[in-house]
């Protein structure tokens, strides 16, 4: 059975990896807000510097970070093109037929592009350096204040954990069912869209049934281990901010301050 990677965690032991996941989550969130605050080129330079520094420290190969762009490549292209070609301005760079490009458009396109790229880079750095399960814990922490307005933070985190736990199991199961139906002459590859969609029935029905059966058994096993969704639970792993977390927070704060200053200039 080929191994299945969950999420896109890149295992390494860099200072970024060992940071408190809650700190990483909050900093990433703040950074994204910063990106939308930036209005000038120097701001982007500082932000890019921050990301570059983090990537460097994290020891994650740059190619991994770059790969995350693939998913939004079309969107990126579209955004850049739209800004470049349709942004009206005064400083005409060149015009050919109905295409006119102004300097303002180029600057705008460059800024929008950088914003998107930095956004993706920073968030993928978060998922690359944080195991999904720790991220789940961090999300639970961030959502905790919302408990007051009846957001079931702990239950949401539990559901995410279980989903993460069962993704590889279900992927394996799907592979097995697919092979079994192929052995009975099922054809998943050829035919038009409708035929292909139809051919998925023998795959999806058993998969759903199996998922429900698993859910049922898992619920029973959780109950047998005294799980009560509404009751208080303790945690084995309690994160405490360490010295390096405060140091990291200081560095991030410095960068964020610089970004804000570029806006005031």
């Amino acid at each position: 059975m080929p191994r299945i990677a969950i999420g896109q965690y890149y295992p390494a032991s860099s200072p970024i990896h060992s940071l408190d996941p809650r700190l990483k989550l909050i900093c990433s969130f703040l950074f994204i807000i910063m990106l939308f605050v930036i209005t000038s080129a120097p701001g982007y330079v500082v932000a890019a510097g921050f990301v570059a520094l983090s990537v460097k420290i994290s020891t994650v190969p740059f190619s991994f970070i770059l790969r995350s762009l693939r998913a939004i490549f079309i969107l990126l292209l579209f955004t850049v093109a739209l800004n470049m070609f349709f942004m009206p301005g005064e400083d005409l760079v060149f015009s050919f037929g109905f295409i006119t490009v102004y300097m303002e458009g180029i600057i705008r396109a460059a800024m929008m592009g950088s914003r998107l790229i930095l956004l993706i880079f920073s968030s993928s750095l978060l998922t690359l350096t944080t195991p999904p399960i720790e991220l789940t814990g961090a999300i639970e922490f961030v959502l905790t204040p919302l408990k007051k307005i009846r957001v079931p933070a702990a239950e949401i985190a539990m559901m995410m954990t279980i989903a993460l736990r069962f993704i590889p199991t279900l992927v394996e199961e799907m592979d097995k069912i697919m092979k079994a139906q192929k052995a009975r002459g099922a054809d998943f590859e050829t035919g038009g869209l409708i035929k292909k969609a139809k051919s998925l029935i023998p795959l999806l029905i058993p998969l759903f049934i199996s998922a429900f059966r698993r859910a049922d058994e898992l619920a029973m096993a959780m109950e047998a281990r005294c799980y009560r969704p509404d009751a208080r639970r303790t945690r084995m792993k309690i994160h405490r901010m360490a010295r390096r977390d405060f140091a990291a927070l200081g560095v991030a704060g410095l960068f964020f301050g610089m970004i804000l200053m570029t806006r005031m200039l």
Partner: protein
Amino acid sequence: MSKPMIETNDLIFEYRATSFEPGSNVQPDGFTALNGVNITVEQGEFVAVLGHNGSGKSTFAKHINVLLRPSSGKVHVDGLDTADDANVWLIRQHAGMVFQNPDNQLIATIVEDDVAFGPENLCVESEQIRQRVDWALGAVDMAEAKRRPPHLLSGGQKQRIAIAGILAMRPACIVLDEPTAMLDPIGRREVMRTISRLNREDGMTIVLITHYMDEAAQADRVIVMEKGSVMMDGAPAQVFTQIERLRELGLEAPQTTEVCSGLAKLGIPIDTDILTIEEMVEAIDLSGNHGVSDLRGNFSQGKELTTPRTRSGSLGESDDELRKIDRKDGIAGLPVRSNMQGQETAIECKGLGHTYSPGTPFAKRALDNITLSVEKGSFVGLIGHTGSGKSTLIQHFNALLAPSEGTILINGRDIHADKKILRETRQNVGLVFQYPEHQLFEVTVYKDVAFGPENMGLPKDDVDARVRKALSLVNIGEEHFEKSPFELSGGQKRRVAIAGVLAMQPSILILDEPTAGLDPRGRNTILSTIKNMHDELGITVVLVSHSMEDIAKYVSKIIVMHDGTIFKQGTREEVFADAKALENIGLNAPAMSRLFQELRARGLDLPQTPFTTEDATRILYQYLKPLGD
């Protein structure tokens, strides 16, 4: 004595219309699963509960953990009444429960987090949880795996993590509901070793629900259930000696016990309450020893013993017993099952190799230089521990996987030569995966079986004929045709799934663990169905199994896989001759051949190695009879 760990008084449980037992079939309204059960389990006892599917043993187990509550009667766990809501969480903490499917009871994505789940629910303080988790993982020998994700562990390891998860709650009793049903022999051994150590060293009360008699034999006490009632209750030696009674209840005694009682019936003075191979070797060695040294010379000269048939006239009453045995199962060693005339090969592999995800960091060599041939009409066994490459190999036989190098010939043709042959191969080679009932998807049994032939583009009449034939081969009557496959029992579902492959009318049938998770009755039905198909239709059968006893009983040739290569191939006699070598690669010889090897090691001069209890009884009788004269 202190109060009993578990005590039930006239426990009755009826399933209501909407309730059903997850993982099994829907129970009809008012179905009485438990009918007046009185069981008392003392502190520190190791009790095994046996019974075929539907006997109520799982329902009983769920009452101990308050997953179910009595319709009438009482259940007390550690003196606490399960009917009282205030006791529920305390009882669940006192009596932890481990389930059958190792995948469906682990919650977290990291082992140690999963073990911590129980104590976290009990609101134990952080540092204490850490201590408990480390202790529990140590107790099941999984300390090194604590930071690993569970989905990369083997079944046996996952099940031990599940046990650790219960241990971390500090229970006084562990209830295990068929914990080894889905495991391979190595996993089973690991889990059983863990359970008995917890019982012996930590005084943990153990209730083990199982289908495996050899596991039950390790308990202090065996309870046999049938139709919701306790039928037998006693020490393993007491219960297992009642062989006829067990058979009536759909169970089997350990093979050694069966042979001993067979011998005793034939007049050999031997204890009938023998359970293990070691005990039996001792008993035979003792009963034989007074004469072995003097008589052995006579045996080797007098050839009459190895050709018993010539003597049959001179034997008395007990010989009738003997002849009955002979008739029942043919003669040992004669390949009555294999069709040796057909020299054509059905499957042939030459230098077959397979690498998963080549060229990536995940590349994994699964098969290496496999060269083998399977003759037409033969019944071949494929054995090897989990991860040895068996599954990868059989998926090559019907072109679900393409070889990285080497060739595969099916009925003499290279299946990857062109597309047309590939298509034909899928029909020609029927592949039944593990737990095939998980692939059922249609509304009715009939439609599900028709899926294969319909994919072949056959006309309606042909499809109909094939579906009917396939279903009759697996003994599914017409009354079930229009039922949903999910209404059937576990064994029936599996037979329907097998029919779904048979309806393609393959000339070669490959079955991956067709008996996994079934009770003895279900196992026997499936295996005899397969054997009938082989005998009557002349289909070539490749049987993948972890049960060496099944392999030994049915196949004529065995292929042993290890680490992606062929470790050994040959007849049963050749392959099982060296039990030690098999043990080293995580396998085992069948109980009977192990017994005979042990006896030979003690200096007994036994001519043949039997594979069934009948043959073993006959050979031992011939050996021991003259010694007693």
